[in-house]
């Protein structure tokens, strides 16, 4: 059975060029970048080149890039690291209701430690309500963390407008750009951002590597302690092969960006039209201003796990915001924040595409979705 992978916001297939170059660093250029000898120096030079390239893609200084093991680590480093240099009663944090659990649960942890935490709301489109955001800022607000694009809906957030608010009030702005980097252009100078998290495996690099952009002058407390790697902010032997691979994947993403944007957006639009034309009562959860690969829909009255499971049996891999799929009792917090009803939230499906998908796959998914919806609606009391 062919695998039809429509879950690219969860993770992606590693790009061939990114695998090829990574392998060289496993088998021949395997030096430790901390070693003083020739192989160590070469490894260090390689890492520095990667740092320069990545810095150029987001328009920051190379020294402002800290390599990490994941987006989650970058998020924790930003939020915990920044707040732990401040006293809990003097530091108020704002994160949005639709953040990834890497931010939400970190903020909740800080709350337990006594920090003040407020949650910014979104509108029905899943986009930050700027007026509300301004209204919850107080004189102790030190950091605001709002994602660049949402992982479930693809909704791109008003990052520029938020940065104007944080600038005006001298608040540090962190953004989790995991779902955006490689898909859209980022300029941390033009849009004033102090911290930004990224993860390689969302843009065709391997899992287990990411980075944090940390603006010069912003201080954070390390999460772990050890040697002098990554300016002592992130000690631990530097993962040269993965960093090289991530850099190559980002090179490829921006080199082919125009072509892939057009291609993937085209597939996504055909998918959306095809679903709307063949199935009744579909709710679209992805707004117009979204990353081009994501389509989130709700099929009220059909529980998402049943849908996911049926599709999986046919070799189609997607994800859902239903509670049953995660063993939780509550459905997706993003759907709930967007004011979706329980039936809509439990019936939400995310289809996220990549350059490796094809028109034939889109046609097959539309046909399969319709068949399954017809079958499950016959069983459900909600038609």
């Amino acid at each position, binding site marked *: 059975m062919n695998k039809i992978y429509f879950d690219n916001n969860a993770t992606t297939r590693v790009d061939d060029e990114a695998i090829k170059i990574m392998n060289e660093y496993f088998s021949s250029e395997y030096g430790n970048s901390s070693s003083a000898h020739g192989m160590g120096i070469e490894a260090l030079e390689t890492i520095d080149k990667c740092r320069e390239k990545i810095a150029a893609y987001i328009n920051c200084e190379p020294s402002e890039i800290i390599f990490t093991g994941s987006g989650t680590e970058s998020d924790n480093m930003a939020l915990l690291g920044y707040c732990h240099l401040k006293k809990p009663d003097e530091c108020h944090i704002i994160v949005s209701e639709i953040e990834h659990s890497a931010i939400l649960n970190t903020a909740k942890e800080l709350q337990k430690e006594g920090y003040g935490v407020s949650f910014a709301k979104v509108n029905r489109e899943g986009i930050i309500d700027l007026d509300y955001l301004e209204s919850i800022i107080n004189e102790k607000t030190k950091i605001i963390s709002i994602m660049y694009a949402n992982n479930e809906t693809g909704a791109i957030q008003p990052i520029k407008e938020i940065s104007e608010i944080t600038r005006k009030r001298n608040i540090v702005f962190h953004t989790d750009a995991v779902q955006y980097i490689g898909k859209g252009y980022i300029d941390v100078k033009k849009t004033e951002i102090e911290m930004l998290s990224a993860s390689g495996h969302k843009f065709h690099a391997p899992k287990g590597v990411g980075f944090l952009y940390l603006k010069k002058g912003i201080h954070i407390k390390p999460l772990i302690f050890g040697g002098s790697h990554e300016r002592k902010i992130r000690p631990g032997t530097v993962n040269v092969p993965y960093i090289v691979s991530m850099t190559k994947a980002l090179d490829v993403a921006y080199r082919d960006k125009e072509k892939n944007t057009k291609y993937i957006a085209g597939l996504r639009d055909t998918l959306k039209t095809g679903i709307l034309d063949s199935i009744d009562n579909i709710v679209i959860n992805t707004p117009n201003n979204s990353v081009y690969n994501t389509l989130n829909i709700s099929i009220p*009255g059909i529980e998402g796990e*049943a849908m996911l499971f049926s599709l999986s*049996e046919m070799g189609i891999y997607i994800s859902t915001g*239903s509670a*049953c799929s995660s063993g939780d009792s509550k459905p997706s917090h993003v759907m709930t924040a967007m004011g979706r009803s*329980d039936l809509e939230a439990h019936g939400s499906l995310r289809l996220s595409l990549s350059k490796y998908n094809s028109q034939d796959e889109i046609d097959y998914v539309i046909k399969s979705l319709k068949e399954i919806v017809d079958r*499950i609606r016959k069983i459900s*009391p909600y038609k």
Partner: protein
Amino acid sequence: MYSKEVMDHFRHPRNVGKMENPDGVGKVGDPQCGDEMIIYIKVENNIIKDVSFETYGCAAAISSSSMTTEMMKGKTIEEVLQITNKQVADNLGGLPANKIHCSVLAEDGIRAAIDDYRKKSK
């Protein structure tokens, strides 16, 4: 993750649909939590003559409903009240731990349908 039996009942659920003029209806679960089950029964001489269901829920909820209705058919009221969620799960070749509540829902459904029947036939 799911057994062969679960998959079979999920793919080809038995006794699906709303029943015309049922003698008892049991509605359990909560769409807020992502599942709801309605069991319809027809009773003749204290025996479950016909049974059908409508379920909103995951694959485990749908297959538990289907299996339960199969287990109820032809039994006396007293017999169906003896059916436990464990028997439903066992007949399905077991359920994953986080899906046991789906078989509990089915057991609750039986009781609710019988309660309704008893109320109506008083």
